[in-house]
């Protein structure tokens, strides 16, 4: 792997940028792998890297039907945070934040981690109660989550200007200082480059169409580029979980729903923090490094694989933003897009073995960009050892059988 540094940049600048190496290979599929990972998003590519680095398993292929990060990894709004409610969630999400802060060095790839902090407005006593409960769980695990008065909100966010007669007045806020924004494409590319350097084959334009099984265990995957034998098969295909699991005869407790985002034209820096207007449909906004105001909301209210969203959501959330930040009224919207979430029934991710031996599932759930490094690391552990990592012992499919759910839906937002 050609290492990136200020010196390699200078050297290549002096030689006209003609000597940069290809970032990863595009090999033909081998006949057989120890592990085939389905899905070339952050979760799949990350799992491949951790398999190679932490477990010495390098005869691995990542099979992606489109291009790397072209699923939800390249579509999300880049927010990473750990404000959750349950004891099974907080340490997992905290671990992910820790990993995000060290990954750029490990991968030798700039992930542009930007620690903006997140401010969630409190507009009702119900929200206040839940946020306080969250804060208590988070404090147990050393995660900072603190109340913030309106005077501090005004100081940090000078353009905050809600009307006096707001229907649900903002009484205060709660703040997670360590919530950050991370460049999403870089996460996919950084993992891909580092995994490739350790011998992982990345097979783009390769779609899995079937999962072969014998005697209750997997034997390989059928693809548009032929059959690939595999000792183990692991899927991380956010938005297509049911479709791919069905190929192995597994039914999952998920529903696929669109999630949308839209951005304004770029403007000069006016907003540092990530803002959540919880009581208005979970609307959230932030200003990207490019200067665009990025807006998002909860998932669309019905299942869809269309990868496009419904208009009332855009109207609702934009209205919420304009009520609190009336000065954005003159901004023009530039772009809008949607991705697909595999929403689990309790709102928590699934990282699990299945009834098919050697077939593992990672369902990112409602907001799986923030979990990418922790999910990838624990998924690799599960694939290598056939046993869950301590952080994900309670996030397996068996929780739907035992009734020990990890309810986060309705409490935490999607981003």
């Amino acid at each position, binding site marked *: 792997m050609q290492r990136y540094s200020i010196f390699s940049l200078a050297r290549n600048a002096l030689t006209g940028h003609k000597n940069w190496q290809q970032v990863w290979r595009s090999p033909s599929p081998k006949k057989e792998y120890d592990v085939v990972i389905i899905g070339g998003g952050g979760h799949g590519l990350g799992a491949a890297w951790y398999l190679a680095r932490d477990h010495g398993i390098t005869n691995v292929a990542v099979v992606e039907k489109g291009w790397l990060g072209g699923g939800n990894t390249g579509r999300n709004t880049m927010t990473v945070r750990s404000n959750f409610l349950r004891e099974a969630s907080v340490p997992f999400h905290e671990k992910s934040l820790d990993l995000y802060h060290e990954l750029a060095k490990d991968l030798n790839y700039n992930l542009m981690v930007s620690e903006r902090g997140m401010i969630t407005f409190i507009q009702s006593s119900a929200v206040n109660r839940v946020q306080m409960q969250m804060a208590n769980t988070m404090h147990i695990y050393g995660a900072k989550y603190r109340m913030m008065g309106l005077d501090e909100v005004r100081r940090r966010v000078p353009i905050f200007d809600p009307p006096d007669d707001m229907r649900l007045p903002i009484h205060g806020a709660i703040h997670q200082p360590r919530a950050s924004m991370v460049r999403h494409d870089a996460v996919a590319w950084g993992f891909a480059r580092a995994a490739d350097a350790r011998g992982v084959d990345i097979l783009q334009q390769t779609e899995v169409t079937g999962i072969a099984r014998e005697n209750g265990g997997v034997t390989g995957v059928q693809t548009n580029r032929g059959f690939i034998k595999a000792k183990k098969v692991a899927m991380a295909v956010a938005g297509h979980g049911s479709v791919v699991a069905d190929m192995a005869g597994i*039914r*999952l*407790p998920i*529903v696929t729903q669109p999630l949308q985002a839209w951005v304004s034209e770029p403007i000069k820096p006016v907003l540092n923090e990530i803002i959540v207007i919880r009581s208005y449909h979970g609307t959230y906004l932030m200003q990207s490094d490019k200067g665009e105001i990025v807006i998002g909301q909860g998932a669309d209210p019905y*299942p*869809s*694989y*269309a990868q496009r969203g419904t208009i*009332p959501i855009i109207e609702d959330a934009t209205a919420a933003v304009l009520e609190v930040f009336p000065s954005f009224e003159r901004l023009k919207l530039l772009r809008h897009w949607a991705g697909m979430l595999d929403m689990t*029934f309790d709102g928590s991710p699934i990282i699990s073995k299945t009834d098919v031996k050697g077939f593992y599932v990672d369902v990112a759930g409602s907001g799986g960009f923030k979990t990418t490094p922790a999910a990838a690391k624990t998924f690799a552990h599960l694939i290598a050892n056939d046993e869950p990592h301590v952080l994900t012992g309670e996030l397996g499919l068996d929780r739907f059988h035992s009734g020990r759910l990890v309810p986060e839906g309705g409490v935490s937002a999607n981003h």
Partner: protein
Amino acid sequence: MLLIPCPFCGEREEDEFVFGGDAKRERPTDPTSTSTEQWVDYVYNSNNTKGESLEWWWHAQGCTKWFRITRNTVTHAITPESDR
């Protein structure tokens, strides 16, 4: 924006309606002979169909009728139940 055909009111915009779920799910009829696996499958697992799906919808902001339509979850094409 979906235009959803309510059998009583005709086509209306989607935000008058509430999605009521997959109409193909069947509750086990006899609890005494239903295994835990079957209950778990009924309560949590879903068909999550990619393609044509038979669904319940509720005209909550209109006549309040519950009815079924077939909706393609990829193209969003809708067929009213009466046309089938």
